[in-house]
């Protein structure tokens, strides 16, 4: 049964730059996969939820808060939406260590607690011992896990994953799928992922 008041409720419609007409609901602990060919607007939908793109019409509500309501003129900035977004390219900050990549997203905590919390988040994604590495010194799978840890750092109300399986090999993909399943059970937030195939 959907618990939409605490989950994500979204309806968007626009004609340009990418034609979109979509509505979805995702309850806490639920995982919704957006599947479709490239160019069908899946990533745009994630960007709309994150506040990086603004549709002409529609609304985005999450955890009881309205993030976007085109009719009411409400459009919160990405900073004011509690969103964890894992980019397809991971978008890790190349000049910062794995630890600092995560700590950067912990500005809501007092500075003294950020290092400890960032370490705990990296431990959750099985990256203990690699805190000091720069993104270029990590494998693709490890980079992705840093990106997941960074996305979780803000204590997000929704977790968004853009093509999480596209750039990893078969073994890593299997591991990632199992980790996502565990994460979904533990986090109790809606998880939306975009993929172009369901394998």
């Amino acid at each position: 049964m959907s618990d939409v008041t605490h989950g994500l409720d979204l309806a968007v419609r626009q004609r340009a730059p990418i034609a979109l007409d979509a509505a979805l609901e995702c309850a806490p602990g639920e995982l919704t996969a957006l599947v479709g060919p490239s160019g069908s607007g899946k990533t745009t939908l994630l960007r709309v939820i994150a506040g990086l793109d603004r549709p002409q019409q529609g609304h985005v509500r999450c955890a009881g808060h309205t993030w976007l309501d085109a009719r009411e003129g409400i459009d919160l900035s990405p900073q004011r939406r509690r969103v964890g977004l894992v980019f397809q390219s991971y978008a890790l900050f190349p000049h910062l260590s794995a630890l600092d990549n995560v700590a950067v997203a912990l500005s809501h905590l007092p500075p003294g607690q950020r290092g400890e919390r960032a370490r705990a988040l990296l431990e959750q994604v099985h990256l203990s011992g690699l805190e000091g590495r720069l993104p270029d010194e990590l494998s693709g799978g490890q980079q992705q896990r840093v990106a997941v840890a960074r996305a979780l750092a803000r204590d997000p109300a929704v977790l968004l994953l853009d093509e999480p399986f596209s750039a990893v090999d078969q073994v890593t993909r299997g591991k990632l799928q199992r980790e996502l399943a565990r994460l979904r059970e533990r986090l109790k937030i809606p998880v939306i992922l975009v993929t172009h195939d369901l394998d």
Partner: protein
Amino acid sequence: MDWEALSLSLRLGAWTTVILIPSGILLARVLAWGRFPGRGAVEALVALPLVLPPTVLGYYLLAAFGGGSAFGRGYQALFGSPLAFSFEGLLLASLVFNLPFAIQPMQRAFAGIAPELREAAWCSGLSRWQAFRRVELPLAFPGVLSAAVLTFAHTLGEFGVVLMVGGNLPGQTKTIAIAIYDRVQAFDDAGAALMSATLVLISFAAIVAIHGLTGRRDRVRV
């Protein structure tokens, strides 16, 4: 060796760099990422000093600084002295003729930063200013450094515009490049050679500094 001219050139280079780089960062960032009407025209204006003969640029600046223009008259009314043939006028001219040397390396540096990195910073809760300070600026830093060194070194070497706008007033507008010309005109080959060698050394050191500093940062980033 004309120490007064060298000191004036160093002062002019330092002021030009200190004023142009921080304000140029904003313009470079807008040109790298902004999509607005007239962007091409602004880019062309910034690049213009690269292709204009220094005398042409100097002529227009001199006309703008003189009593015949509203700008020149306004400056004189405000500060009580004319801009033309003064250090302040020279500094203003220096800011104009250094525009491409300051803006273009920084624009390329900002354009090289993937837009997702900024967006990832925003989604991580960083304000636009924090994203600029913690993500954009460190990544664009090699470009900012190149721009600063190029601006400083180019200011020391500029001749045509300086001569047109500043003339040749010792302690006021006589830079080291003008002093070298002066020495050659006076058949003082030894003096000209010493000052030329000094400029070569400073320029060489500047280029080595750019390579050393940006190279070291690149290695850190790899």
